[in-house]
């Protein structure tokens, strides 16, 4: 505590307080003097606000001041209409959150039905999901994952805090195990969806390190 520069702490507090949206650590670092120890400052600030009416909340690699969740009941008057999501959208969001990074065919395979047009669009526009990278499988399909905004919206510190994550993992329900259509089903909504899934999911993370060819973009080396 003694090694914390009070001016840095005040500045950090002001920056975070001034913003309605969660601010990424990258951006915070850029706004603080170089010598500031961001990690330590954030920890300190979070502790200072613990138990108050306003808390410093972490969402992935972003931070924001938010009213304390337990005060929710007292705020009914301020409440804006929460976004209503269709059942398909909620389910799709859950699949992306728990299975990310996940490709569109994989989402369809898990849900057992094709993804109707606006569903991903809606989630993307809401800022909750985004393309994360590409699978190193034939066709190099785009994978989808959730954003810090998603975490912020649902008050999650990280993906590990997703409700039931541990049990689901333990029960093997998040495995990229092929289900139905690995077996000879003539056709079916997602008959070919699974073709890539197996090794695809094996490599797990988005292939951040290698991303050559844009499919369309005519980058012409």
């Amino acid at each position: 505590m003694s090694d914390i520069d009070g001016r840095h702490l005040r500045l950090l507090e002001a920056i975070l307080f001034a913003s309605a949206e969660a601010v990424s650590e990258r951006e915070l670092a850029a706004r603080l003097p170089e010598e500031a120890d961001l990690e330590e400052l954030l920890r300190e600030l979070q502790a200072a606000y613990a138990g108050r009416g306003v808390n410093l909340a972490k969402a992935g690699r972003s931070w924001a001041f938010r009213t304390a969740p337990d005060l929710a009941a007292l705020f009914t008057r301020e409440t804006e209409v929460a976004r209503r999501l269709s059942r398909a959208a909620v389910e799709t969001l859950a699949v992306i959150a728990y299975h990310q990074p996940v490709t569109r065919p994989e989402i369809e395979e898990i849900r057992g039905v094709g993804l109707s047009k606006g569903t991903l669009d809606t989630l993307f526009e809401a800022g909750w999901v985004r393309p994360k990278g590409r699978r190193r499988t034939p066709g190099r399909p785009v994978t989808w994952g959730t954003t810090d905004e998603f975490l912020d919206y649902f008050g999650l510190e990280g993906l590990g805090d997703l409700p039931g994550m541990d049990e689901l993992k333990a029960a093997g329900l998040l495995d990229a195990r092929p289900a139905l259509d690995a077996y000879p089903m003539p056709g079916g909504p997602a008959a070919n969806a699974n073709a890539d899934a197996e090794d695809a999911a094996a490599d797990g993370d988005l292939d951040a390190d290698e991303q050559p060819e844009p499919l369309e973009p005519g980058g012409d080396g």
Partner: protein
Amino acid sequence: MEVGEEFEEARLMGVPEDSRFVVDIEGYEGPIDVLLALAREQKVDVTQISILQLADQYLEFVSRVRRANLELAADYLVMAAWLAYLKSRLLLPDSGAEDEPSGEEMAEALAFQLRRLEAMREAGARLMARPRLGRDVLARGAPERFTATTRPVYEATLFELLKAYGDQRRRVEGRTLHIEPTEYLSMEEALRSLRGVLGGITDWESLWRFLPAGLGPDTPSRSAFASTFAASLELAREGKLKLRQDTAFGPIYLRATGAGRGAGGGNDEGPGGNGEP
């Protein structure tokens, strides 16, 4: 985006508790959804369901829908066929075929699929039950920006970027649209292609090996399957080849009848458009 709400209401009607089953397939998102609903009827705990019983329930569901003269999407029928097949695999002793999964494996795959979907539904519900920003948790109401100097910082989101590109491509394409013929495999083409190779088929071979080569990447394979299958039926009718299928939904084999080759080239007596130059 709100469509799902309507679905939900209809759905409740589709899973009644009494025997007067209100058949309303509109309420379901697809065969898997029906299966999950049936499984829930059977047991609260989806891990405990009997797949055999579930298959029966599904087949019963489908027959009720058809009795009510409602149209069923192909997906539902495909699932019915698959479940009938699964049922036979579960009831009959294992055929011992190496490369095919056993009935139990198939049943387990289905059970897994249902459990996983159920888990995702629950997860979605739990997610939506969390305190949410803007409803239960509030952000800073008066964000502050400092406007002392006016160096502009431009803002745009990835969504806007991609949307803009999509929009403008559509606009420009729309102006100079060239409609290209839909790529599909016509019956005539399939006949022609099958006649061409007919002479060489001296032993039973899987029909699917004779899908014409060189199809464009966008040709729907179903179209190719359907046309080739129909063409094989036509050629069988003409007595040029024989077809064989050992099990329901099993692979289809074909073989040329003795005289196959001679008729191959110019014989255009087939019905339909074969007369087209």
